[in-house]
């Protein structure tokens, strides 16, 4: 009797483990076909030769910003180019390289990865599979082979514009910036934001805090911490806070609603992805990174056979980045912002990338 009970117990624990492992397993790719997407535009029949892999970083579809933006680009490619897109999302940091390998062996001619964190895995996989094309959003590593394209965004330019907008709209002369991981990529957001704010008001006070050190992935998913920081600054007199921290940014918007102040979104137009009209009333603008454009254009170039390796820069001049005007809160200062934008494009204003 006892023995059988013990066996049952072991079996129970083993089942837990198996179920957990099965649930955590993402190796089976979900395929989105031409049927998805509800945006307007002509739909093309699926093109069996255009097989594209899309590896999301942690967060995946539905993160409201970065990955969602890439997903929109892929959806557009599905619709307008007839691409078949296989999607995989990294659950943990260890998933990234295996996901790239899975997509490669799946027969996808072009494998897109979203996020700089794919760098190390990409270096290994791209070298081993010279016939497959790879494109990576935000990343860069030296001596990459020819089959790798880096899609770069001048995020500091968009940040400069929202920084100027924040300074123009602030009545207290006190604004804030919350970053995700303290890495060069996010520091560029801070640098642009601060410079833009100081361009309008040299005496403005800009509070800066990061949610985590480099490598601390929780920094992208800690809305509770972002909310506390934002509440603290709002109570101290800040009236606009810009957050570049992935999923944590929702916390700043919550705080803005609670305190009755402004928040600035990032990557996607967060006015459009906000949950309720209450939140929309507090989203001043968003620094937009057109990851969707970049993804779509890359797939298009791949289809036309014009995709080359190396750097591909997306900035204000080719609408790769920009600022959102949804809600109309910037109507009174729009001319000023457009003038600054023109100055950046013409090179009259040089935006720093380091704080």
């Amino acid at each position: 009797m006892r023995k059988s009970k013990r066996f049952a117990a072991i079996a129970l624990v083993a089942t837990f483990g198996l179920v957990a492992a099965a649930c955590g397993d993402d190796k089976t790719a979900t395929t989105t076909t031409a049927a998805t997407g509800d945006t307007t535009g002509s739909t093309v029949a699926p093109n069996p030769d255009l097989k594209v892999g899309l590896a999301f970083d942690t967060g995946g579809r539905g993160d409201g910003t970065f990955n969602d933006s890439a997903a929109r680009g892929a959806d557009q490619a599905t619709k307008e180019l007839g691409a078949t897109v296989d999607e995989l999302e990294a659950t943990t940091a260890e998933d990234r390289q295996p996901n790239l390998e899975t997509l490669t062996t799946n027969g996808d001619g072009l494998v897109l990865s979203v996020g700089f964190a794919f760098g190390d895995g990409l270096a290994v996989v791209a070298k081993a599979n010279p016939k497959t094309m790879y494109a990576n959003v935000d990343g860069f590593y030296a001596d990459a082979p020819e089959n790798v394209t880096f899609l770069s965004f001048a995020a500091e330019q968009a940040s400069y514009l929202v920084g100027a907008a924040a300074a123009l709209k602030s009545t207290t002369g006190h604004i804030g910036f919350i970053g995700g991981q303290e890495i060069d990529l996010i520091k560029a957001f801070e640098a642009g934001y601060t410079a833009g704010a100081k361009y309008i008001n040299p005496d403005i006070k800009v509070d800066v805090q990061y949610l985590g050190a480099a490598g601390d992935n929780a920094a992208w998913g800690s809305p509770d911490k972002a909310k506390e920081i934002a509440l603290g600054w709002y109570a101290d007199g800040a009236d606009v806070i810009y957050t570049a921290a992935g999923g944590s940014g929702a916390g700043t918007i919550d705080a803005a609603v609670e305190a009755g102040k402004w928040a600035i979104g990032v990557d996607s137009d967060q006015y459009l992805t906000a949950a309720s009209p209450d939140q929309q009333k507090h989203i001043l603008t968003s620094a937009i990174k057109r990851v969707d454009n970049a993804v779509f254009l890359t797939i298009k170039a791949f289809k036309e056979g014009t995709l080359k390796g190396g750097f591909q820069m997306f900035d204000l001049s080719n609408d790769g980045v920009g600022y959102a005007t949804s809600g109309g809160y910037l109507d009174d200062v729009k001319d000023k912002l457009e003038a600054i934008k023109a100055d950046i494009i013409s090179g009259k204003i040089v935006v720093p990338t380091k704080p």
Partner: protein
Amino acid sequence: MKLIALLKGKATPARTMLFAGTLFLLLSLARVLSDGGDLTSSQTMGTTLRVTCPILLAGLAGLWAERAGIVNIGIEGMMIFGTWFGGWGAWKYGPWVGLLLAIIAGSAGGLIHAFAVVQFNVNHVISGVAMNLFAFGAMRYMSELVYTAKIQGAGISQSPQQKWPIPRVNLPFLAGGDLFGWKTPDSLGWLERHKWFAISDLAGILRGIAFNVSLASLLVLTLVPISAWVLWRTRFGLRLRSSGEAPAAAESLGVKVTPLRYAAMAISGGFAGLGGGFLAIVSSSYYRQGQTANRGFIGLATNIAGNWRPVGVLASAALFGFAEALQLVGADSLPKLFLFLTFACGLGLLVSLLRRKMVPMINAVVAGGLFLWIYLAVNEVPEPLTKAAPYLMTLIVLTTASQRLRPPAFAGIPYRSGESH
């Protein structure tokens, strides 16, 4: 003389009160001397409360389980259940339903753990770890089932945002709340603004609990005295604790250990689930994968540092919350905390002098000197250190207190009903 005898003596409530009071005065002194306005401001205390609540709930979850003789390593997993079901319920039916669902989901997790360890005598740690793994995968799977139908803002790793939050209130007469439409004075705010020694600090601390406080936070705080009362003042609590101390003896006296342990695990899981729900509904406004961020384990640590007592758990959770809050909203005043730590070491030195104990004396002098040096030398604590501050503080408490801690005698030891007969 009486005071000295009290300082030298054994741990009694009076002695604990004396120490707590002295530490508070030292904190206040440090605040005045270093002009560290944020150390005890109501803003910092409000954040402390919100950061403390989930950890406190995890700690109480550990307390309830271990008091009944079950080690609950699975708190983290039960919290994950709570975040998911809390986020889903709050999005679909409103925040209160969300919290209720979080409790139920956590309880279900607790019962699964109880089933494994009570019925099948599975090693408590292994079952708990399995629970954590299972919860993570299962909730991700649930997201895939529920959230992939193109719901705005939802995805495999997060729920859509909730439409409305749990109401926040200002308590009347203390923090200027409304009473039947009449706006009462903000007396604590008035006291806090004057920056008086001790009085303003006390007002700041109290106002953190009274001003703009979520009803959910107040509810969580009441669970501490309720836990203490049920566990130490009721028949049910006595029996529950006896099954954690000496289950064989309890059983020989007719106490039904097995059902009691199930009940304890349902309660423990409920606390953990509520902690998860709090994170998804009060601390933020949506479920997100990884939201619990190992708070379940920190809760276990506070349970140990709190010596398996509700008030102790509250104190150590609040200490962690305070360090975390300072890191989030008062990073400027963190160096000033070192002045307070220097004073605290001075108090330790005094006590060890009275007791004529050499080792603690040397420890106090060395640590105090170190803290004083840091306070004088450092203008800004380096970022990585501020991030680690809460964990460092927990570690210090655990290492210094571990000698005098007394866990339930039978926690984690396999026990079969009727074993001793």
